[in-house]
């Protein structure tokens, strides 16, 4: 697969404190997960072993689905990133912001958006009926529908992360490439691919985990029990059978399997490449290449964004009524407060993790520093909710009062893998390409961070901050068991509306969350770009 340059230990400035902080973080997250599983076992005792063959079949099905979702998402993400990097057009910023907003949109909203466009009574079917006179017979339900929905969520995220890598190519290299007259394919192979491939293993791991643990989308778009996931078996073990031991066993199967995948991806070391503060430069392509980029952008842009646009179109007319609901303001405020705090926490934790990993050289150390942080994504939602509830209760706290704090922490941990996948590659590349220089300068960790690293990753930090904010805004969270009628967030309010026949309110809330996310992704990076540069 990837041919990696040999690592030279002496080229990376050693920062023992960074590694200790990173190790502490990884340890705490690991202990938290182990504690949650033990608390469940203590509450429920040893369960009945699940049927081995059935579990293998479930893992097989889920792996197939997650593998395909990952491949398609990465391919779509690369194509979109390439097209967006080459093209400049009016509304480019909005398209990028909407793409970023995709991953933070609740899965159920994306699924409904997808159905508005591709469903039996959707936009495409209506348009084809009007054109041809007969109703077309295609179905969005099935494996294809699941992968489509996952690609909207994860492919758009991949595009956003990969675009950041392409935009960070040093202008000098581009100038050189242009003067050498590189053709489109050559430019991709010589300049783009080395920049992209460093981000791919981390990105693929995160996307695989998201798809592997996806639950409502799989059930809703799967079209019946033929498409299943191991998560639903865990859900049933807790909810239907109250067999907590079995739930933990199944969770361990899922975590173990995901750990295997993550380990493999973490061992692929990112390639060394110079990187620059994100300043997209122009590149003059041949006309066919430009046309290709336009076609890719139109095709994939439509496929990925039309479901989100459908969510807006259906929800915005119902917004005025929603705004009169007395419950909206408290839910909005709670959501904004939780989102602000958890995104700041996520950025801090993500920086600790990414800086620690960038200063480590041995593959095993890098794995141990990074992999546990992905653990949160591999743990079944039901098990996490149960574990958090029991831990809070065992600690003698009132679950209801603890709910907002648990939500903040849980959301920050949820964003951590994305933070690591976004902040890791540029810091790794810096450590490897400028390591010798930094080492010879004998900078302290603080000076190195503020003078060298921070200016380089400011755009990425803004992305993580926005990501963290919007993720927390749209996350249903793990407080299913903490609940009280006195506390609500926007997504909880949306699910309540949906559960009480109020589909107009639910649509308006989905649109509102999407609007906030889009705005945050547009505004936050610009604000952060305006903060005076530390070097100035």
């Amino acid at each position, binding site marked *: 697969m990837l041919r990696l340059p040999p690592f030279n230990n002496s080229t990376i400035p050693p920062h023992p404190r960074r590694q200790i902080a990173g190790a502490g973080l990884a340890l705490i997250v690991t202990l938290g997960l182990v504690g949650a599983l033990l608390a469940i076992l203590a509450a429920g005792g040893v369960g009945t072993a699940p049927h081995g063959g059935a579990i293998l079949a479930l893992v097989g099905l889920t792996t197939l689905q997650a593998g395909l979702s990952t491949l398609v998402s990465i391919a779509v993400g690369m194509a979109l990133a390439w097209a967006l990097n080459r093209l400049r057009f009016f509304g480019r910023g909005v398209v990028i912001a909407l793409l970023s907003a995709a991953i933070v949109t609740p899965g159920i909203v994306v699924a*409904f958006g997808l159905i508005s466009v591709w*469903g039996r009574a959707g936009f495409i079917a209506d348009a084809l009926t009007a054109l041809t006179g007969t109703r077309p017979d295609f179905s969005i339900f099935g494996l294809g529908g699941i992968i489509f929905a996952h690609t909207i969520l994860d492919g758009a995220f991949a595009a956003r992360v990969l675009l950041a890598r392409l935009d960070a190519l040093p202008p000098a290299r581009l100038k050189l490439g242009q003067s050498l007259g590189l053709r489109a394919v050559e430019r991709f192979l010589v300049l783009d691919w080395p920049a992209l491939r460093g981000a791919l293993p981390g990105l693929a791991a995160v996307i695989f985990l998201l798809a592997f643990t996806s639950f409502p989308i799989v059930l809703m778009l*799967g079209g019946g*029990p033929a498409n299943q996931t191991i998560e639903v078996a865990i859900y049933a073990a807790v909810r239907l059978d109250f067999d907590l031991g079995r739930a933990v066993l199944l969770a361990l199967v899922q975590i173990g399997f995901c750990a295997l995948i993550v380990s493999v991806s973490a061992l692929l070391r990112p390639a060394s490449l110079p990187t620059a503060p994100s300043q997209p430069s122009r590149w003059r392509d041949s006309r066919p290449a430009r046309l290709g980029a336009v076609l890719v952008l139109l095709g994939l842009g439509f496929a990925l964004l039309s479901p989100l646009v459908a969510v807006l179109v259906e929800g915005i007319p119902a917004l005025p009524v929603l705004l009169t609901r007395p419950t909206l303001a408290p839910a909005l405020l709670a959501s904004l407060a939780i989102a602000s705090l958890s995104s700041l926490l996520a950025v801090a934790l993500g920086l600790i993790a990414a800086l620690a990993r960038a200063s480590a050289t041995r593959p095993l150390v890098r794995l141990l520093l990074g992999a546990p942080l992905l653990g949160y994504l591999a743990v079944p939602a039901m098990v996490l909710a149960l574990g958090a509830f029991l831990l809070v209760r065992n600690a*003698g706290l009132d679950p209801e009062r603890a709910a907002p704090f648990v939500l903040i922490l849980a959301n920050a941990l949820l964003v951590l893998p994305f933070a690591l996948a976004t902040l890791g590659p540029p810091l790794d590349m810096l450590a490897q390409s400028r390591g010798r220089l930094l080492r010879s300068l004998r900078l302290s960790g603080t000076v190195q961070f503020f003078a060298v690293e921070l200016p380089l990753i400011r755009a990425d930090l803004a992305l993580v901050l926005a990501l963290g904010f919007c993720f927390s805004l749209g996350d249903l969270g793990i407080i299913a068991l903490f609940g009280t009628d006195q506390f609500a967030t926007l997504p909880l309010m949306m699910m*309540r509306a949906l559960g009480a*026949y109020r589909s107009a309110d639910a649509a308006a809330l989905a649109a509102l969350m999407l609007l906030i996310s889009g705005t945050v992704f547009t505004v936050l990076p610009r604000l952060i770009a305006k903060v005076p540069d530390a070097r100035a």
Partner: protein
Amino acid sequence: MLKRMFLLVAASCLGLAAPAAAEDKPVLDVYTYDGFAAEWGPGPLLRAGFEKTCACTVKFTTAEDAISTLRKVQLEGPATRADVVLGLDTATAPEARATGLFVPHAVPVNGLVMAWDDPDFVPFDYGYFAFVYDTTKLPNPPKSFEDLIAMPDSFRIVIEDPRSSTPGLGLVNWIAAAYGDRAAEIWTGLKPHIVSMPRGWSEAYGLFLKGEADMVLSYTTSPAYHAVAENNPNYAYAEFTEGFFPQIEVAGILASTDQLDLARAFLTYLMSPEAQAIIPTTNWMYPVRDIGPALPAAFGSPPTKIIALDDEADFAAKAKARVDAALAAVQ
């Protein structure tokens, strides 16, 4: 827990052991499902109604759905703060009874529309699982499961996953109660019509409203929502000749309660004409008491052909096997 014990010990050492916050009103802790206590549910009105009479404070603590409230109580065990669990149904009550966490309610139950002799739980509303459709799009709905199976493959239904949803489990029970040993055959016949089996009622009903299915598994009372709240008379439920399978929602008192009298009073209030008049247009289920004109005409009269079970406890105990068999049949 520890902290509370420490405080108690400290208080008794000082000779101050007294009921916590004696000057405050007593609190009745009610565990229920989220939709019941939320903005549009019956919770807020029932709380206000009961608080007027009880000189107490009602506090709802919610979980995602009714069965999750039972799981929550089971996790908390005798240390639970809950006095009353509200929202369990006839399918889950036997399991709840078996946990030994509940105490006989000892509340007189009379004057209801149904005969009731359950010593542990009292009913507060009920409904029947049914397939709901849009009369303007489907003038001739199927009249039985066999009718439905005989429809062309393009006729689509959306049902909920029985492992994660109450109506989903209800359909498994309905078919088992109606067809016994032939249940698997019915499920196999339904398979080509099932367009989706989402996680819960919300997703399923949303898919139906978006036009992805001709019928959705819901309740006989769903059309009343559209008629009353949206002034849209176009929805109806399909009359199935096999008869309907009831879901009776019940409430019970925890053995560990410290507010036994309040809990009993609350259960009595739940069945009172005043509370029963609140429930239909907030929880969209039938009242358990004849409330006369307080019940909107759109509710119609409940279906008359009901499938009765010989042995409810035995039927409930075999739910897991039925779910597995149904899933295997549509696999």
